[in-house]
């Protein structure tokens, strides 16, 4: 069923974008991520799957240091993006997050106009020289978010007035507007209906041309549809990582197999 994906990933680039080694995450005494090492490729969609509470979101949030905002959270080990340690003392997490964009589980547009939602990132990072520049960036981002046609006539109306699926695509447009190199998505479709989900999935596939996309999902079908690589997490461990097709057809670990066949859930 995944011949296309398997074929593509065999041909795909093998440049490593993110490389994590021996990552441990603690929430106080709770050891949430245990010894995770993974190489995430550029221009590839990598899916994190696993039962809920296994640490997918936690690990994803390590990649742009969103965990820094949680007081009790402690991260050790090394995570390198383009061979630079993102937990180095000299790294400013704010600069990192401009490079590693994030889309959240619940659509969270700012309660501002659609235009301002998308323009906010470019504005604070000084990506536009003038108004015309900014207009262009906003339009390009909204086109890449596959929502331009729906909102081009009402850019000044509030982003919170859109439907759930539109809001999520707006959030994706907002994330790509800052020209990140990596796009992290934490269950981006969990609040969406099937039609909106299909639109977002299609979008993810297109985004792969420009970014390294990491997507957390609880839906195995979704992982199979959109990703080339899949990592299976279980109780804080990364149990198995490989080509999506291979994970779903011939899993190596019994835990992966029982999850895929629906015995752990």
């Amino acid at each position: 069923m995944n011949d296309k994906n398997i074929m593509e990933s065999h041909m795909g680039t093998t440049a490593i974008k993110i490389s994590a080694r021996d990552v441990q995450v603690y929430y106080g005494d709770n050891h949430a991520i245990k010894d995770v090492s993974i190489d995430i490729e550029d221009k590839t969609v990598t899916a994190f799957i696993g039962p809920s509470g296994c640490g997918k979101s936690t690990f994803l949030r390590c990649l742009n240091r969103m965990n820094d905002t949680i007081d009790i959270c402690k991260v050790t080990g090394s995570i390198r993006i383009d061979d630079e340690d993102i937990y180095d003392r000299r790294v400013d997490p704010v600069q990192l997050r401009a490079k590693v964009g994030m889309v959240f589980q619940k659509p969270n547009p700012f309660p501002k106009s659609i235009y301002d939602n998308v323009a906010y990132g470019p504005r604070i990072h000084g990506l536009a020289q003038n108004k015309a520049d900014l207009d262009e960036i906003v339009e390009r981002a909204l086109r890449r978010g596959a929502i331009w046609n729906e909102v081009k006539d009402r850019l000044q109306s509030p982003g919170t007035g859109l439907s759930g699926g539109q809001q999520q695509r707006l959030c994706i447009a907002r994330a790509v507007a800052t020209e990140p190199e990596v796009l992290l998505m934490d269950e981006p479709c969990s609040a969406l209906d099937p039609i909106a989900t299909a639109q977002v999935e299609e979008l993810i596939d297109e985004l792969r041309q420009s970014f390294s996309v990491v997507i957390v999902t609880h839906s195995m079908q979704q992982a199979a549809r959109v990703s080339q690589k899949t990592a299976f997490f279980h109780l804080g461990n990364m149990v198995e990582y490989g080509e999506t097709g291979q994970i779903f057809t011939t899993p190596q670990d019994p835990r992966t197999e029982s999850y895929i066949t629906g015995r752990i859930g």
Partner: protein
Amino acid sequence: MTDAIQKPEKKKSSLLQLDARTRTRNAAETRFKAYGMIAIAFGLLMLSILVFNIVTRGAGAYQQTFVALEVELLAGKLDKKGNRDLDDIKKVSTFGYTPLLSNALEAKVIELGIETDLKAKKMVGILSKSAAAQVRDYVLNNPNKIGETIGFEFLASSRVDGYLKGRVNRDSIGNDKNISPAQLDLVDALKAEGSLAKRFNMSFITGSDASDARPEAAGMGTSMIGSFFMMLVVLVLALPIGVAASIYLEEFAPKNWITDIIEVNISNLAAVPSIVFGILGLAVFINYMHLPNSAPLVGGLVLTLMTLPTIIISTRASLKAVPPSIRDAALGVGASKMQSVFHHVLPLAAPGILTGTIIGLAQALGETAPLLLIGMVGFIASNPPDSIATGLLSPNSAMPAQIYEWAKRADPAFYERAWGGIIILLVFLVTMNTIAVILRRRFERRW
């Protein structure tokens, strides 16, 4: 088969007939609703009694009795040298003007043919003691009018005013040195003729407080200015300090035992009786820092201390109400903590912060106890300040302090003014709270 059908029919309850449980439940609900309605009705009744009382007792202060007189500004009395030199004219004190008033009254009595045994000197008793000063002020401003006859409207004395308002009557003045039945006869005659009448008294709202002997001239205006300057100090200090403290505590401060202690203390401060802040102000601002007594600046500082906890608590509540997803969204596109707070969180919390600030200000506006200790009560604020600096530093009173002061004085004419002052204070408070409600309604977040 028939059995099978009949059996459930027997047990089946009709929806048209209430069972016992439903009946008791409905009865309980009805009772509860009745209790609620009684409570609200009681509250409304008390409120209307309060408002009715305040309005009926206070309304009198907005009306005052005035006497219209033609006063001849005798050059011989006011400017003996006749050279219209202002310095010379100033040498004539208000006592020098009293004869002009008695002349004017006598002339009026003769003109109207009123029969009275009163000497001209006694007639002046029906006028306020401020009448002479009023003429003097006029002359000092218009020295060229000396020698002419000018029409004035003088305040009647508080006894005469009370007579017209029904507070004073012929039986009650037996031992009163300030008014006699003969004077009341004169008042009746002047009233019948129309040159003595009760009308709306703007100077109660705009004027200054007056000494014990002249209740008819006392007004709220100067103490309103005092309150205004205090509120200015509170707003300028408490709002930025309170908001900054809240933002720091809510968004930046690490959660540890130190911030826990700070938090508990802020909540406790909100419950500290205001008189404690008053004595603190006395000790620190006046005794230690030697700021002037009775100054609105000191009052404002004390009220700032009192208002800070209110502002901090309401600001923190409105910051907390901003969903964390908004902060995540901002951080996710690479905004710094500071940018996320100032670009997104603060604007969303602003209506709540403003509402809290207005309510804090309204509280401070009505506060009396701390002002007792820093000398803003009992001070007769007779001159309005002429600049911001004097407004802040020269002694003044404040609205609630002024009301308290009037209520304390013996003369019933002041009592009426205390109620009148309460009306003004309430109008301010209601206006401020209405603005707070409107702001809250207007900017309520629509997610």
